[in-house]
């Protein structure tokens, strides 16, 4: 006997259903099926397989379908939640570690939602971005190197390794393997059109995408998949992945079935073999080892490319960041506990790490207290959901943000959180050719460009309202923020005042 009851119900309006079987063809989970009887043909549903991804709903030509959460409940219990009980059934059945995907969905505070932004009134003017220049261009890398002059006393302008962004938003790391070829192509093309960067993740770089190199950040992770000279040379920056917000402290596991011919070539591992990224880098057991890897990569690329070190937001993040800022890295990327993933143990995703808002505020303050904020730029992600989150993050001290979940949603993701199954009906988190082709990179890249263009407009509106016409004057400008409903301790960590103060 299986104790797993269906979490969702498929509600089909039989008067509207024309038996066209689109739902049946579109559902990789095989929820829908046609049965032929003497009385006629009917569509039936195996609801236990439904993940609530809305693919069938979106494609049903007569809008005959909706998916609702089942109202079947266990007897009311404020201690034993439905999820606790169901997960125990599942583990008792399988003996396995629970797996989940995308970001932590649990009911923890979202600090971005408790922060409000300022605007000018009377004492200084707001600025209309439609009439005046409003600058969102960002340069990431070290700053304040020291002025050099020639013998006539003229400043000799220097060029240092940096990333140049037209807007303070980059696409965060998602490997080819965890997401599809078409998803990657959409990201790469959008990054090029927008004048920003996308990130290969730890899956190497597909040969077709080398042409997007100027808009690519290549990642070096603990598995070192796909890392070789051309790869490092092609990207505009190299990111060392130490951790990920969704699963701090553990590595990655791309199951063999996702290692198709193409993925195998890109990752440089045999077809069908599991791709296991160890939890730590086995050449980095301490901060001095990180410094060696930073400089090995700089040495390998002639000190031309900025090095990013990406870490998950954990309890002592400010001390860690301080160490990284002295390691020779040019950029620190911090990933909050809401950050997404293609697959992570549920317990880790839902219980490890800290909110990005607190991590960011504490790191930015710490680096300033130590006088080393100029050593690095700060990029934060996990999870940035809107342009308002971006403005708040920058005012707290970030130089730019990484987005991934938002980008996938723009590509059609409905956050069903079942990426680990590899059967993404939207053609994003899958390697199944029939599913991958559902995502058209022409349309995908256009949607990404639209999203970021819209966000950038909103950022400009918000900046103009504050009387700020350049993004660098917003960075770390915490007086532009106020908290609502936060404790004094939370306000102190965020370095902001309460609304009304």
């Amino acid at each position, binding site marked *: 006997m299986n104790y797993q009851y269906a979490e969702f119900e498929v509600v089909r309006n039989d008067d509207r259903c024309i038996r066209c079987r689109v739902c049946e063809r579109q559902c990789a989970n095989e929820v829908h099926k046609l049965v032929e009887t003497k009385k006629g043909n009917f569509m039936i549903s195996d609801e236990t397989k439904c993940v609530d991804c809305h693919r069938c709903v979106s494609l049903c030509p007569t809008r005959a379908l909706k998916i609702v959460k089942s109202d079947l409940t266990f007897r009311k219990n404020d201690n034993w939640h439905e999820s606790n009980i169901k997960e125990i059934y599942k583990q008792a059945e399988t003996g396995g570690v629970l797996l989940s995907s995308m970001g932590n969905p649990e009911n923890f505070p979202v600090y971005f939602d408790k922060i409000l932004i300022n605007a000018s009134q009377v004492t200084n*003017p707001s600025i209309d971005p439609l009439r005046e220049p409003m600058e969102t261009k960002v340069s990431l890398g070290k700053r304040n190197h020291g002025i050099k002059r020639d013998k006539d006393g003229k400043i000799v302008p220097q060029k240092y390794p940096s990333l140049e962004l037209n807007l303070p938003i980059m696409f965060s790391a998602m490997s080819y393997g965890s997401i599809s070829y078409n998803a990657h192509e959409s990201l790469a093309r959008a990054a090029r059109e927008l004048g920003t960067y996308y990130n290969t993740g730890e899956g190497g770089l597909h040969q077709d995408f080398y042409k997007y190199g100027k808009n690519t950040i290549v990642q070096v992770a603990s598995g070192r998949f796909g890392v070789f000279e051309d790869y490092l040379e092609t990207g505009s920056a190299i990111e060392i992945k130490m951790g990920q917000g969704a699963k701090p402290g553990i590595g990655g596991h791309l199951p063999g079935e996702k290692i198709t011919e193409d993925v195998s070539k890109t990752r440089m591992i045999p077809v069908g073999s599991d791709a296991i990224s160890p939890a730590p880098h086995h050449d980095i057991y301490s901060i001095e080892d990180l410094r060696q890897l930073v400089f090995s990569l700089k040495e390998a690329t002639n000190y031309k490319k900025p090095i990013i070190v990406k870490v998950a937001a954990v309890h002592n993040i400010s001390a860690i960041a301080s160490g990284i800022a002295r390691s020779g890295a040019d950029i620190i990327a911090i990933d909050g506990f809401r950050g997404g993933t293609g697959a992570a143990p549920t317990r880790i995703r839902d219980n490890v790490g800290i909110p990005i808002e607190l991590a960011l505020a504490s790191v930015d303050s710490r680096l300033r207290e130590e006088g080393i904020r100029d050593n690095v730029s700060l990029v934060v992600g996990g999870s940035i959901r809107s342009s308002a989150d971006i403005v708040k993050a920058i005012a707290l001290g970030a130089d730019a943000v990484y987005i991934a979940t938002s980008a996938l949603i723009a590509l059609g993701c409905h956050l069903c959180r079942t990426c680990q199954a590899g059967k993404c009906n939207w053609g994003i988190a899958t390697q199944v050719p029939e599913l991958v082709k559902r995502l058209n990179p022409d349309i995908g890249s256009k949607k990404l460009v639209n999203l970021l263009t819209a966000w950038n407009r909103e950022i400009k509106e918000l900046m103009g309202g504050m009387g700020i016409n350049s993004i660098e004057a917003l960075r770390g400008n915490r007086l532009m923020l106020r908290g609502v409903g936060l404790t004094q301790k939370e306000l102190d960590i965020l370095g902001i005042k309460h609304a009304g103060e």
Partner: protein
Amino acid sequence: MLKEGEIRIPSGCAIAGVISKEGKNINGKIIVDSMTVMHERSNGLGGGFAGYGIYPEYKDYYAFHLFYDGKEAKEVCEKYLDKKFEIINLSKIPVRKTPKITDEPLIWRYFVMPNHNLLRDSQLDEKEYVSRCIIYINTEIKGAYVFSSGKNMGCFKGVGFPEDIGDYFMLENYNGYLWTAHGRYPTNTPGWWGGAHPFSFLDTSVVHNGEISSYDANRRYIEMFGYKCNLLTDTEVIAYIIDFLSRKKGLTMEEISLVISAPFWQTIDKADTEKKELCEYLRKEFPSLLITGPFSILVGFDGGVMALNDRLKLRSMVVGEKDDKVYFASEECAIRKMEENVENIWSPKGGEPVVVTVNKEKL
């Protein structure tokens, strides 16, 4: 009610300035009179002046002007000054009592040199040594405040209308090659003399009209380098930024203007290669020192003055010339008050610095 330094108070203002390129003496009364015609731009809650070249007999010594809340603060502070410096001369700053100016603090002036041994042991250059002492007094000694600290220059300021403050300090008794002035329109009652302008640090003094929107970004950046923004005013942070860029980074005033009032990227892109590279480089080196929001400032420094507006020119500022003199003011009437027959009046563009220096040989 919180006083200045405990809360950030935005304010509007009037500013004026005059410099003699030949280093000729200009009497303090001229600048005081110029402020009378801009009376409406102040609200009686702050006024002040900075004069350069006013202490020729002590020109090699740092002239410290101090406000004390009471005798106790004075005793503590003088003990500290005595330890860190050789005090060459000390006195009350002479004032003329007037009913228009009340609740004044104790106001003292010291001409000092760093204690030779302590300076050597500190391994700091002289100005850095002095600057750290000023920051110490202003941060750590309760009730004591250094409001002027340069050589052969001095600030005079307080709570009141600028013309009354000028009268109070008897500026007609001072002559200098450069004067700047400020009348304040704060949106709160600070009731504290330290909050008036000019703000000055070592030889740099700033008078400022505006409210900068980049304030906290600038403040949090500059505080990394040992500065403490005790007053929470725009003028204070601007003065520290200019001190940092000129004294610690060795930038000229024109170069500083490319940092704090940087040209827009769209302007930079159109510039010739040399200018483009320089502007791009400076913006990337010091992005957190870009100042946004409305401002017009007069920066006094040893041997000259710079007038600068924010890059959108959101505050008024006009410049005029006559013979060896250059005049600056928020309004033309203030310039005409100083020189009826002023010539070449123009309004500098946003972000365009007007730097005037004195022929040093004439000083």
